């Protein structure tokens, strides 16, 4: 189903991802069933062929990511999706895609771990996502939606950024945002200017140069040069593509920071705090890589107290601490993932109250 009206739809987060993929011109989807993201392959198995696309249930997560590699190498937009255990298996392919400078979209609907863990919402794969995840020292673009609307919008953006920067892009969400239904407007946003894919492997026609998609670099200095080239691209991303949201930070004495599902819970806690007379704001990173460091640095020039909230024992807090001014304090409240561990707004309000102190 391609939706271009301004009509309000009522859909699941996972379905919004699938709808956005089709809208973004995704031609191939490869995946393997795993809870809590199976709505994505289910939707696409039904809808993608209708728009001439190719849906294939792979034999394994490894099969799926390598099919993505192959399809992407021929220049089409392609996607895969999974959760914790499956994303671990895909890391080999993601590393090869990064090394081969291939675009491609990977949806990660986080569940708890390690190991089989559980199917409850988790944010404990922040490190895995933002530090590259596989071998070799690379990064991928990571976007973190906090609403069903953003599941739609950021999936579309992931395709564009992935093409522009020639690297895999991940939409990092969890089973709260994936499973909840919200009213959304499926309006295609203005298309970004995309570079021509002059590197595509599609058969060397007469007069054309041979095209090779590869990650092997054996020549003297070749690999080193490639690393610096990747590094330059990450700096460019940091300069141009940081995205974040701020709520009531202007006069805040305490700034809560959280991404994805927890930021939603925090928003209501902040409303409660304001009603109770506390000057509390929120900063929510939307791009986790690149991490909006400058936004944190600027806020911390005035506000010296941050409260980082995560569904883990603390991962994003590393980036927050690296971003804020040296004299800013970063407090932490975490609920490691698992059944019954989703915090309530009331609980987060209590944490705000505990940490809050007004400057005279």
């Amino acid at each position, binding site marked *: 189903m391609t939706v271009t009206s301004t009509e*309000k739809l*009522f859909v699941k987060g996972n379905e919004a991802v699938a709808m956005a993929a089709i809208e973004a011109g995704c031609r191939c989807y490869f995946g393997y069933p795993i809870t809590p993201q199976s709505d994505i392959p289910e939707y696409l198995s039904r809808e993608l062929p209708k728009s001439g696309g190719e849906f294939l249930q792979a034999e394994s997560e490894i099969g799926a990511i390598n099919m993505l590699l192959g399809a992407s190498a021929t220049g089409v937009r392609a996607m895969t999706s999974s959760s914790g255990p499956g994303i671990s298996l895909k890391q080999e392919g993601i590393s090869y895609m990064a090394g081969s400078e291939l675009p491609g979209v990977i949806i990660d609907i986080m569940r708890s771990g390690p190991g089989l863990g559980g199917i409850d919402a988790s944010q404990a794969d922040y490190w895995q996502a933002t530090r590259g995840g596989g071998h070799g020292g690379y990064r991928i673009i990571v976007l973190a939606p906090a*609403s069903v609307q953003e599941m739609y919008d950021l999936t579309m953006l992931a395709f564009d950024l992935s093409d522009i920067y020639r690297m895999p892009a991940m939409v990092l969400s969890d089973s*709260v945002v994936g*499973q*909840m*239904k*919200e*009213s959304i407007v499926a309006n295609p946003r203005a298309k970004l200017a995309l570079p021509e894919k002059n590197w595509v492997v599609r058969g060397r026609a007469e007069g054309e140069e041979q095209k090779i998609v590869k990650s092997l670099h054996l020549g003297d200095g070749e690999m080193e040069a490639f690393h610096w080239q990747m590094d330059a691209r990450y700096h460019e991303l940091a300069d141009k593509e940081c995205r974040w949201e701020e709520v009531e930070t202007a006069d805040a004495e305490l700034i809560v920071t959280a991404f994805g*599902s927890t930021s*939603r*819970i*925090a*928003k*209501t*806690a902040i*409303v409660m705090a304001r009603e109770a007379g506390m000057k509390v704001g929120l900063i929510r990173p939307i791009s986790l890589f690149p991490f909006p460091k400058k936004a944190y640095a600027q806020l911390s020039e005035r506000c010296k107290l941050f409260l980082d909230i995560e569904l883990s024992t603390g991962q994003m807090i590393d980036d927050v601490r690296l971003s804020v001014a040296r004299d800013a304090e970063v407090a932490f409240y975490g609920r490691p993932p698992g059944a019954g561990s*989703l*915090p*309530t*707004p*009331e*609980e987060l309000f209590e944490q705000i109250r505990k940490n809050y102190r007004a400057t005279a």
Partner: protein
Amino acid sequence: MRYDVFIAGYGGQGVLLAGNLLSYAAIHEGKNVSFFPAYGVEKRGGAAMCTVVFADGETGSPVVGNPSVSVLLNQLSFDKYASKVKRGGVCIVNSTLIDIGGLTIPEVEIVQVPMNQIALDMGDVRMVNMVACGAYIEKTGAMQLSSLEAALKKALPERNHKLIPANVNAMNAGAKAAKG
């Protein structure tokens, strides 16, 4: 204005459909809506619950610790969740299946509606969720009954649209019973 409602029962009582209906009705009235489902690992007969938040502006947290309104359809969910209702809130219970055992919650209005009985009297016990929706609207005034009727058209597959009049009757009966 921001409204939140928590609905719980066992699988088969139409808890998720009730949540969906209230969501569609709120969208019909131009609200932003967040519907958050949760259910047990059992495919049939396990616990089922959902939270619906709707607002003119942002819906904020899809998770609510102390709901302003809870609609509880069986004893188990009453025992577990009745005490969580926010002060000043409303707890609507299915008195056919729930014995409140004289429980009172400070500053919470407990509204007893014999939902199963009403649904049975209307001809089908499966309409218990419609009775619950009617009772919810009557007690909260959060939306119009006509919006719920419009929502039925969206939420039910075309082949079941012939059942809409009966469902609307069940909602009206639920509303009437909640009025007391």
